[in-house]
């Protein structure tokens, strides 16, 4: 199994982004997804900057994919999408059907986690259009995945979100701006203040979700480290790790050791704890509520 790093979901200053990918060059990861997937107002880096990072990562031996925006409404966002699709150098991850429409027939592309791929017919159809890899929608459990894997088209790679805060929902409303009583149009880039997103708690003080601009994530870290053997058995080709403000390189190193058998899965789980500001969950994989964790009592 290969390891991939998802696009950075948060809004970071340019220097922080550059440092992050500088560090990743030496990390034991195979594939790196680059670009802004959440909010088109985040413009610390333009396509030229992303392509420069892509070049460095390629030189360092990484496979680079350019990711596209998930919610596309404005003509300006479509124009940005078109530029990425026509980059002529790197494959593209489609996160909206607009991207699929533009990519179909242009060669290989990746179906991102925000395209709803729930059955074999859909998978076959997207493969026919040119998809050579798909990232499983986060809410699918191992039973459904197993069935999809058994019928997947030849040559289609499967990538599974394996570690990090789950990307759960997108809106036209900016929740981070809302929490600061600012309209989205004058958000003053408040997201820059929250490199790991803004945690939302229940009234009994449990961390619940993370607000990341127009995206909502889980506060819990989705962690399938103790399921790696099952993932292998299901012929998952690539495991995806989501960037977080600190520790992404270390996290990928631990997971790589566990994959290679140099570290037991339990030991890896233990070592990962130091990078977890929150509890962990693995419910989706077990066909349960995403927030639940194997071995924990379920409160229904």
């Amino acid at each position, binding site marked *: 199994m290969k390891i991939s790093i998802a696009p950075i979901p948060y809004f970071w200053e340019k220097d922080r982004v550059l440092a992050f990918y500088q560090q990743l060059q030496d990390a034991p990861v195979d594939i790196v997804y680059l670009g802004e997937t959440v909010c088109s107002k985040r413009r610390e880096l333009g396509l030229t900057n992303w392509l420069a990072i892509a070049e460095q990562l390629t030189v360092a031996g990484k496979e680079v994919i350019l990711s596209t925006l998930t919610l596309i409404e404005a003509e300006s966002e*479509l124009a940005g999408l078109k530029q990425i699709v026509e980059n002529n150098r790197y494959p593209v991850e489609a996160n909206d*059907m607009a991207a699929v429409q533009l990519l179909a027939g242009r060669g290989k592309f990746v179906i991102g986690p925000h395209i*709803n791929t729930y059955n*074999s017919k859909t998978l076959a159809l997207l493969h026919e259009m040119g998809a050579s890899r798909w990232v499983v929608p986060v*809410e699918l459990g191992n039973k459904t995945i197993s069935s999809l894997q058994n019928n997947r088209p030849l040559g289609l790679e499967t990538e599974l979100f394996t570690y990090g805060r789950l990307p759960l929902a997108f809106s036209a*409303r900016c929740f981070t701006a809302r929490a600061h009583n600012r309209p989205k149009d004058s958000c003053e880039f408040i997201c820059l203040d929250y490199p790991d997103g803004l945690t*939302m708690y*229940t009234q009994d003080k449990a961390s619940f979700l993370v607000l990341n601009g127009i995206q*909502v994530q889980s506060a819990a870290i989705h962690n399938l480290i103790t399921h790696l053997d099952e993932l292998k058995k299901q012929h998952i080709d690539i495991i995806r790790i989501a960037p977080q403000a600190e520790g992404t390189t270390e996290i990928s190193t631990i997971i790589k050791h566990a994959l290679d058998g140099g570290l037991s899965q339990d030991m890896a789980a233990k070592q990962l704890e130091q990078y977890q500001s929150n509890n962990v969950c693995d419910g989706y994989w077990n066909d349960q509520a995403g927030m639940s964790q194997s071995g924990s009592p379920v409160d229904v």
Partner: protein
Amino acid sequence: MELICPAGNLPSLRAAIDNGADAVYIGFRNATNARNFPGLNFSPEEAIEGLHYAKESGKRIFLAVNTYATPESWKEAVDTVDTAAEIGVDALILADIGLMQYASHSHPDLRLHLSVQASATNRHAIALYHERFGIKRVVLPRVLSLAQVQNLVEKTAVEVEVFGYGSLCVMVEGRCALSSFVTGDSPNSAGVCSPAHAVRWVETPSGRESYLNGVLINRYKNKEMAGYPTLCKGRFQVNDKVFHAIEEPTSLNLLEILPDLLKSGVTAIKVEGRQRSKAYVSLVTRTLREALDACLADPENFTPSSDSIAQLMLLSEGSCHTLGAYHRPWQ
């Protein structure tokens, strides 16, 4: 401009037709549609009865098959599409491209609409569904501004339907897994959001608490009106402040901008709420019918009557209305 109204059973369907709906949308009693609630929806026999009733008044019936079928539920979804074609529904409302391909190949004469659950928010996405599966109409997610809706009407080859009244999804439809994160069931996979089986109410000395699968969604002081714990409409704490951090309980109401929608060439406005009562469907349909007729007769001078606003306000979630994303500052 057509008025499309919801029905969760035959009496509501008849009420919608009687009160002025141009078309009624329904779902079968299974997990193939986004209102898979206990005690709701139609058997094929009831759907046939509804079709007859609509036909007599020259009205139409649309059937929603708008969840995303998994391999386990694929057969049920395909059977539902076949049944819909067999009984002669006027249009099928689909979200999944696998199912769209099946429907367009197996039943080429069946009219297809793109469900709001397909999250098509731009012209390229809509073009994909139009070119590959021949969809005739798109139902737009409730996240677009009025200007964006107008732009889409101009630039797409298909009819445009927008939500005009009812509960408001603040998330892009089809792209929200919050409910499955908390309960295991989501609109995409199971046709439900914040399902009733996961709801628990607790009375405490200081008031009521609502929980969804053990997660505290809201606390109500004594005498405060309590709402259904839809998880995005709870009160949570962010930066030491407790508030409706995602969305207030409020209803979408587009009465105010009816003339703008009409002018922009929107084909139909849709009322949310297949889970609502017959009385609700009757009142909302009648009120919107009157408003639409008044607007069609004299769009330049149309303003919603205070009576119609009052009527709809009574039915609103949290007794509160919003223009949602149609009104740019909301975004």
